[in-house]
């Protein structure tokens, strides 16, 4: 987890839990907006019992830095250990960690501070199997991962003392040094550059909606200036087939991309979103035009310091 402090508003703090693809994009966007990283601390999944101690220590540090007692703290939960095919036990573990952070937020709120909680949720997990998802669509998770995200949103909504900001992200693309989950686009780019085959379990014509991690990060940070509760669908409204992504990567790397397909009886269902459901001021990049940049980044290995601006994803 990372503690940041605003340079322009001393005493205003933010804590980001989870420095994966999206978390690091959020931190980069904050650094671009004159936040500085104050402390980096481990918050290991494997040590759930130790979370309480870490959070108590963290609360003390916040108390030491926010001396007037009514400053604002933004908490960002962008952590995620459970993947889309996670088991119920894995998602239960993650939910427990999330609840511990919610409890921490309650403690900070009880001290008089204003706490805004930003939850990175998953549009794909919540609306799996649905197409043309609009403002009037209802989440209907179909697997433990989606249920986890729904439960996280529900728990956050139940903490009425917290200002809640929920971001339902669709499929995210972007490469990151050291990231474990690279997503389809990142995987294809890196594998093709290394002449490795990518195995796709599903259909080449499956439709997904891709957004750049950096675009999502910037939106989250911009939304930190909002005082009221918000829930946003961060998708592009532009469905993209896997075939199209593969083709674009081929053009960008200038060589055939070796892939193998493993068709499943279930097949990959499409998940698409209406543009009318997207928030105002949200202008995500088109994944097609972003792929050449990702290829260049992968070739240069340019993401050296993921918290510095210019380190793209």
């Amino acid at each position, binding site marked *: 987890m990372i503690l940041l402090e605003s340079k322009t508003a001393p005493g205003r703090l933010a804590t980001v839990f989870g420095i994966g693809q999206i978390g690091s994009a959020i931190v980069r966007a904050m650094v671009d907006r004159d936040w500085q990283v104050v402390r980096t601390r481990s918050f290991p999944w494997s040590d759930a019992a130790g979370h309480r101690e870490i959070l108590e220590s963290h609360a003390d540090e916040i108390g030491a830095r926010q001396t007037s007692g009514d400053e604002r703290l933004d908490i960002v939960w962008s952590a995620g250990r459970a993947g889309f095919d996670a088991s119920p036990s894995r998602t239960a573990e993650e939910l427990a960690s999330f609840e511990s952070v919610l409890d921490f937020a309650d403690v900070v709120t009880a001290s008089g501070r204003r706490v805004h909680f930003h939850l990175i949720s998953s549009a794909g997990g919540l609306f799996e199997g649905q*197409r*043309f998802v609009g403002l009037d669509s*209802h989440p209907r998770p179909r697997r433990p991962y989606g249920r986890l995200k729904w439960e996280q949103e529900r728990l956050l909504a139940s903490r009425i003392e917290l200002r809640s900001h929920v971001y339902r992200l669709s499929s995210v693309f972007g490469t990151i040094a050291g990231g474990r989950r690279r997503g389809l686009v990142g995987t294809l780019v890196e*594998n093709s550059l290394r002449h490795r085959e*990518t195995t796709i379990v599903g259909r080449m*014509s499956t439709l997904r909606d891709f957004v750049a991690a950096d675009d999502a990060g910037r939106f989250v940070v911009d939304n930190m200036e909002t005082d009221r509760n918000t829930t946003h669908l961060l998708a592009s409204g532009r469905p993209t087939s896997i*075939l199209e992504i593969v083709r674009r990567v081929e053009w960008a790397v200038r060589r055939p991309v070796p892939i193998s397909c493993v068709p499943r009886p279930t097949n*990959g269902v499409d998940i698409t979103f209406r543009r009318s459901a997207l928030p105002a001021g949200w202008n995500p990049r088109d994944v097609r035009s972003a792929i050449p940049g990702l290829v260049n980044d992968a070739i240069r290995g340019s993401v050296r310091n993921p918290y510095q601006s210019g380190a793209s994803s």
Partner: protein
Amino acid sequence: MPIASSKGSRFDDENAVILETSTTPLEMPGEIEAAGSPGFPDATHARAVALSTVTPVYRGAAYLERLVDQLESLRERLRGEEWPVRLAECVFVVDDADDNSEAVLQRIAKRHDWVTVLVLSRNFGQHPATVAGLLHTSGDWVATLDEDLQHEPGAIADALVAAVRSSSDLVYCVPERPPHGTLFRNVTSRLCKRAVALLSGNRHVASFSSFRLIRGDVARAAAAVSMRRTYLDVALCWFTDRIVSVPVPAVDVRHTETGTSGYSTLRLASHALRLLLSSQLRALRLGAAIGVGALTASTLIAITVLVQRLMFPASIGVPGWTSLLLAILFFGGLTALLLGVLLEYTSTVLMHVLGQPTFFVVDRSGDEPLRQFLEASVST
């Protein structure tokens, strides 16, 4: 939605990208609504077939409101007659329109969330604009139609019936009689298509029309490989050979109301050139055969002339004629052969660059609900 595998996932291979989904929804607490997205329930319920439309717009301000009204009527008709099909979205692609089409469409989009407006940065042409629109669709079927009411949206239902009954992937809605235009233009258009059909061996060329119904996966795949100069219908033929035509009424409203056509002769010529360049001409492939034939013939003639010169020198009266003829025949034949080989390579590379696929997998099982609906409608 994370779709790349990572360490610890079922696929330990870090190169695997998982797109599959489960089919069993979880029982959720009472907070969750029972229904999915209105009109598009998830796969646990009967899955409605989604229909999308794409309309490139260049000069359609005077017609767009009426067109959207007609599309809305189609939407209501499909719903009212309980078709297992929903008109889910209509994508309009503004191709640097020279009237206020964009403003009209933005107003319309505010009223209907099923209308999507794309604005291209400059004029790219009808086919690229259509490609852009196709790449923004999610429907199981996609209909492309013109902006100027020449193509009646109601005919899309007829095309859908034809597609499902014949298990086709592409239906051309061909006007019962040619839209109003000069005799010269109609004749040259027909002749051009016939010439290309003959030269390319593609029997569907004569049916090519901008009023089409395309299976969604095929449409998006063809659009994904299409480049700037690709003729969209040629690209569609790379992915499917299940193509049928249905006759539809066509009224050139633009010509009736204004006396003009949407396309100038220059634009039509540009279309013809694009069609020619996108098609793999059989004549090019015959180049190598022609070259071999020419070299063989020239060799045989050369041998004949040489034998004649040696055996019957008196029969060749002009000194040096034999040598000259031998040289011309040999190098001419060799040049023809090399040119033929070069044409063959060029044709192959061109088709590869244009995106002609090695194969494409299609799933037609989604036609079944509509097929059953049609059979039930007939029996009642």
